[in-house]
């Protein structure tokens, strides 16, 4: 990270935390904000967050490691989460999983080399009446079939 970027990040963190009077309740929204913008929460950001909220950096890391939507290692710009819970599984999740893996040449749990895409499984998305379902970034896709799923992922930039 360049010095300039670091300074920017520090400013952003301070501005964000000031809306919460630098109270610890700012932690989750703040981490979610950094995650969304940088696709991960780098070490430097963790330390700055800890400094601004006056807590130990390990506390910040502990929170990041607990939640599956927060991560300290870089992930792809687009995160694909395919529901693996039983109802979507019965509706044909495995066929979609295999089709996507073949199409992208990427296994679930991996990130593409160009950092474009990360494939993950997730637990119930609350779409059991219209499965199989997946969520790409913030958008939900339902009633997937292998062809449709691959077409959706082709569109991603």
């Amino acid at each position, binding site marked *: 990270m360049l010095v300039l970027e670091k300074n920017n990040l520090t400013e952003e963190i301070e501005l964000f935390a000031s809306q919460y009077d630098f109270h610890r309740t700012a932690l*989750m929204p703040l981490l979610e904000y950094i995650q969304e913008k940088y696709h991960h929460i780098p070490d430097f950001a963790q330390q700055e967050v800890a400094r601004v909220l006056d807590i130990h950096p390990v506390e910040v890391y502990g929170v990041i490691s*607990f939640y599956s939507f927060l991560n300290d290692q870089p992930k792809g710009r687009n995160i694909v989460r395919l529901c693996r819970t039983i109802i979507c599984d019965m509706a044909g999740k495995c066929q979609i999983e295999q089709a996507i893996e073949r199409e992208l040449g990427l296994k679930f749990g991996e990130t593409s080399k160009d950092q474009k895409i990360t494939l993950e499984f997730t637990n119930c998305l*609350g*779409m*059991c009446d219209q499965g199989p379902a997946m969520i790409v970034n*913030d*958008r939900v896709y339902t009633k997937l079939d292998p062809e449709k799923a691959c077409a959706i992922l082709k569109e991603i930039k």
Partner: protein
Amino acid sequence: MHNDIVNTIHESSLLFSNYEAGSGIKKALEMGRDDILFELKASKLKGRGGAGFPTSTKWMLVAAATGADKFIICNADEGEPGTFKDRVLLMNAPFLILDGMVVGGYTVGAAHGYIYLRGEYVYMRQFLEDCLNEMREKNLLGNNICGKEGFNFDISIVMGAGAYVCGEETALIESLEGQRGEPRNRPPYPVNTGLCGAPTTVNNVETLAAVPHIILMGGEKYAERGTSASSGSKLFSISGDCEKPGVYELNWGITINELLAKVGAYNTKAVQVGGASGICIPKSKFDRKLAYEDVATGGSIMIFNESRKMLHVLKNFMEFFVEESCGQCTPCRIGNQKLLEGVEMIEKNQYTFAHINNLKELGETMKVASKCGLGQSSPNPFLSILEDFKEEIFHAKSDGVYK
């Protein structure tokens, strides 16, 4: 919302019926706080998240608690596999829930409410923020709501980040405070020591949605529905092997057979009631009733037909629990792993009955020794599926192929 989500509501007698936004608040503000609690008590409304704690008692405890700050939290961390009623409620009847929170705030004396929305539902966030702004414009939120001097209340939305255990109320509070979502010991209960140590009520989305209707129609009228111990109606999320999956609002006390007929399920072998942490009901027990006094449920109904392998279903559930256990207490963290290993042994035909019986005992131990509802209920599918489907799992005749 640019999504291909279709909200299918097949039957609705109350919650999705016409409701004029704000009318519940206006009526409630004309009533005294005690009158509201009285109506709630008469309605016999119980928590719709699955645990079934009487809502009037919860609110009464928070109303009676002393403290400068009090909070009301809407638990929209709907993570139980097979449940999607809160999604449909939040998208189709948001004002019902928000009005319920305002009434709750007024009743217990809270000045702030939080909606803890699960990370997977982030696409709803802007929509809900717009709803909140609309309410602020109409003075249904803010200072001196509807001209009621001294009643100030506002709601903010906080996003979860993909942790199932945060649906447990104390874990949810921890998460709101910016901590790992690890459940606390109870007691003290959140009604005394909740968010930031202040008295807090945590209610399910559906519970809050019922409140404005109870205020408008009166508690006794509401209690006419359902059975004596389980009053009112319930949203059921139906999924799996049936013709008409979706949300059904039905009165408590309906039997599983009646439900299956309604949703067009044929050749049904088993019904998992209450999500992954619920119990699996075999065909022979389909005359059991869905009610707090018989089969209690947060609304998740998953239907499996004859072609499904119950061991595969069980494995999926146990993988879910291994992944979602917060890891704080040993019975849950290690117990779920051991149960999953047991299922895999059965799958590979490498089990002994002595070991399986040990695992069943372990399951019983987890039920009493785990710290929160996750570990206390995660052995449920293991115990009920291995018991009720032992013929299929252990006695099935070989198909001639040695596996």
